[in-house]
């Protein structure tokens, strides 16, 4: 119990502090402080981002959008850039926690926590996000799938922090987002499913059914090969389920998660078929 708190005011100061042992960055604290209280982590230094100027940009960078590490879910929900260019992100953000959590929690925080149930990760995976990392050696960018290595595990090295996340605009795609929790609202996902569809192009990602959020690439390619018309649902389903490897946990069984994903996929495509026809 007990830790030192640092409040850097510039990136340089932050970088210096990051060289210390057993230090954790805190943006909103909505996840970090919960884990400390539960005794799951025990850092002796917390570096709060609350006094840093800037780093809260939501910028239109051509075919991509950049979201700074201090952008909260509430800020993102109010962003015209995101409303226009990433409706799928808004759909996911609305499902996060409560106003109190959305007012403090950040999208980059979701990325760094690397939870398979992170609601904002599904749109990031679907939008081929890149994680912008700053560190002692300068800047590097990693695709989100390479950045997130497992539950709570990332490719961050000592002294590095995530400065921002950049992802493709998807305003011209049709978004679908389903989340199943134990109750209808304010729940942690038991299984979630996000889709972007445009003509015969499909992107599909699952949450809470594998160690990380996953994209079902084989199913995406199958969709393309079928010219966007799935005639044999089973074949498509099989290619999706290759990516689905859920576990039993406190919220639901593996069986339930898989079953729900199958059913949601069916109804998503029923919906799509009706829409296209």
């Amino acid at each position, binding site marked *: *119990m*007990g830790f030192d708190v640092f409040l850097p005011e510039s990136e340089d100061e932050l970088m210096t502090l990051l060289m210390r042992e057993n230090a954790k960055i805190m943006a909103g604290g909505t996840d970090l402080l919960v884990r400390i209280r539960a005794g799951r982590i025990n850092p002796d230094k917390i570096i709060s981002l609350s006094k840093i100027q800037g780093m809260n940009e939501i910028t239109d960078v051509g075919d991509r959008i950049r979201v700074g590490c201090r952008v909260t879910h509430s800020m993102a929900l109010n962003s015209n850039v995101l409303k226009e260019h990433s409706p799928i992100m808004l759909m996911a953000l609305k499902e996060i926690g409560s106003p109190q959590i959305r007012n403090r929690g950040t999208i980059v925080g979701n990325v760094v926590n690397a939870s398979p149930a992170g609601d904002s990760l599904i749109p990031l995976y679907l939008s081929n996000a890149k994680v912008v990392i700053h560190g002692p050696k300068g800047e590097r960018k990693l695709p989100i799938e390479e950045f997130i290595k497992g539950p709570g595990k990332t490719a961050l090295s000592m002294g590095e922090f995530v400065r921002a996340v950049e992802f493709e605009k998807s305003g011209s795609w049709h978004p679908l987002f389903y989340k*199943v929790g*134990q*109750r*209808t*609202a*304010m*729940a*942690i996902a038991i299984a979630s499913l996000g889709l972007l569809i445009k003509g015969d192009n499909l992107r599909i990602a699952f949450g809470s059914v594998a160690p990380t959020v996953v994209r079902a690439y084989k199913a995406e390619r199958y969709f393309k090969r079928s010219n966007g018309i799935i005639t044999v649902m089973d074949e498509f389903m099989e290619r999706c389920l290759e990516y689905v490897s859920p576990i039993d946990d*406190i*919220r*639901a*069984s593996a069986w*339930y998660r898989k*079953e*729900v994903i199958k*059913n*949601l996929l*069916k*109804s998503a495509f*029923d919906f799509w078929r009706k829409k296209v026809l």
Partner: protein
Amino acid sequence: MNTVENKKNVIGSKIKRVDAIPKVNGKAKFAADLYFDRMVYCYLVLARKGHGILKDIDVEKALDVPGVVGVYTYKDIPGENQLGEVVKDMPCLVSVGEKVRYYGDVVAVVAAETYEIAKEAAEKISLEIEELPAVLTIEKALEDKIRVHEPTNVPIHKKIRKGNVEDGFKHSDEIFEGEFYAHYQEQAYLEPQGIIVTPDIDYGFTVYGTMQCPYYVQNSVARVLATSLNRVRVIQTETGGAFGGKEDVPSYVASYAAVAAYNTGRPAKLIYDRETDIQTTSKRHPIKSHYRIGVSKEGKLRAVEIKAYMDMGAYATLSPIVMFRTLVHAAGSYDIPNVKVDVYGVYTNKIPPGAFRGFGSPQVLFAVEAMMDEISEKLSIDPIKLRLMNTLREGSRTATDHLLTESVGAVKTLENIREISNWEHLNKEVEAFNNTHQDKKRGIGVSHIFYGVSLGAAGQHLDASGSHVQINADGTVDVRIGGTEMGQGAKTVIAMIAAEELGQHIEKINVHQPDTAFVPDSGPTVASRTTVYSGNATRLAASELRQRLIDVFCNLTGALAENVQWGNGKFLDSLSGQEISFENLVEHAFRKNAKLNETGWYKTASLEWDAEKGIGEAYVTYSFASQIVVVEVNLNTGQTKVVKAYTSHDVGKALNPEGIIGQVQGGFVQGMGYALFEDLKFKNGQILTDNFNTYIIPTIHEIPEELIIDIVEEPFSRGPYGAKGIGEPSLMPTPAAIANAISRAIGKRIKRIPATPEYILKLIKED
């Protein structure tokens, strides 16, 4: 005492809660909000093993933490190391050499200068426990090979033997059977358990805390500290919800804190964090039940045979009286000539359940109502009609052969829900929805229940209450009762009764926090009994005082007593029109040294009860309710949404209609959580769902769009103004109605609650 009269002052009118302002401006003092000079903070050390022998407690490392004042174990208890209301089978602090019986058994209390230090030190205490195989299911307990307590895991058996069930089944055209299981439910009051014990100026101890039953706390602390009742004073703080969860548990919390206060000589504050609260405090009992019901082809119930097993966890504590309620309510609100019920209490190495709104009855009401729904479906009888055919009326006899002579609103509640739901149309509407939807199906569920008011035959010795009413020289009134306010509105209804009887404005009446120093042992605030017991006691005291004020008034004005009216802060001679304000009258009374304080004492006549056969007057009276619920089940996910609900409650007389509506709304939503997603999960006897991120209770999004409430008033002649209880009956019909609605929506019988999405999806997939 016949108390049914028409009253004109405040009873039955819309009143603002008397305790609302301090609660809305943040000034109300709940347990954790009290701070005392030189106070120590406490934290508990739990066994964290399901079953074993405690071999050693190593406190050295904890004592080394700076700021630790002391660590107290069984050796530091001056009195009896024994807790447990009703059955005293639970240690206060487990002794070395004795058994640990569940994960949450308390071994030591740490006292420190701050809460953080106390918690940190508690984590540094190491326990040596020789583990024994644990009994984690009812089935395992019934084998009786590994014993939680000697001599048996099945120490309690209660029964009803009415008529002859074999005969009844012989004369039945159809026999239905079913097995049901109702899981735990956590009370999840928002304010966690919390107590402060402080050495006081009367050379004893004063206990402050969140609780339902100050007299239980007083007894428990006196025993543990080996002191007398007149050295322990208990004052209830504002209580942030209880629902039964603060019936016996605060006695235990107070006992741990008392050990710390005794040994440190300082005020000791013990506030549970949510995890400790869920891990160690009582829940609704899990009950497995088997039903067999014989009916005529017209749908008349001929015989019912029920076997139910309830998991008492590691300690029986309140279980025997909870079982009594299970027993009496198992056959539902129906007139059945032949009834055989057996209820068994079973020990396991798990959390000891206790009191929770409904007290052992929602589990079996869910089961019997599922059976009624099944009968209605199979015999193609309209579910409301089937219930009307069999329900209790004046002149009916309950399952325990209790002849009902008055205040039976059962039929009316059934007729009223049919009307307010527009029953025929509702059925068509749901049918139309189902014809046009593939992934979602709707269903309509009906339930009908009765509920015994107050403690009944199993707790008669506790069924009396006092109230002290005092008029001050400035015309204000102090009312002190033994019943507690925990959010249900007791203070408001008591203030209304005092205002009604005295004629004083309700704003001038202060219903104080219960304090054992002022009011004699008034029993517990449970079983929907406060309005009837504390209410009647207040009424007695206040009407006595009014008589004295009338005498003074007559002396002053020459009015005749029978012409005197009171209300709105004044007394009036209806003949001459002369009036005197309440304040003025009191001033005169004081000048004459009139006695303007009175203690009312109310008790009910004893009930005839044959415990061997389970036959007789189980309760003083019964409340009745009927409910219709429409649900929508998502066939892809198994998730259920309650779309709308109609509910009708017979409350005798609605003293505070706004308060009743609030109770019914809250009870409905709590019952909905129980029916759908509140699911306690375990691993080796440890509760995994020990905070609100995993133990899921309803948010504002889950409530049905429409909840239509109807109140039936069938007066109870011995209730104040005819009132019966509503606190618990507000929840009772909901789990059953929702389960039946889901069954109708998916075409499969729901036999377990909570009916989680996973359970429902499994049923849908089954062939």
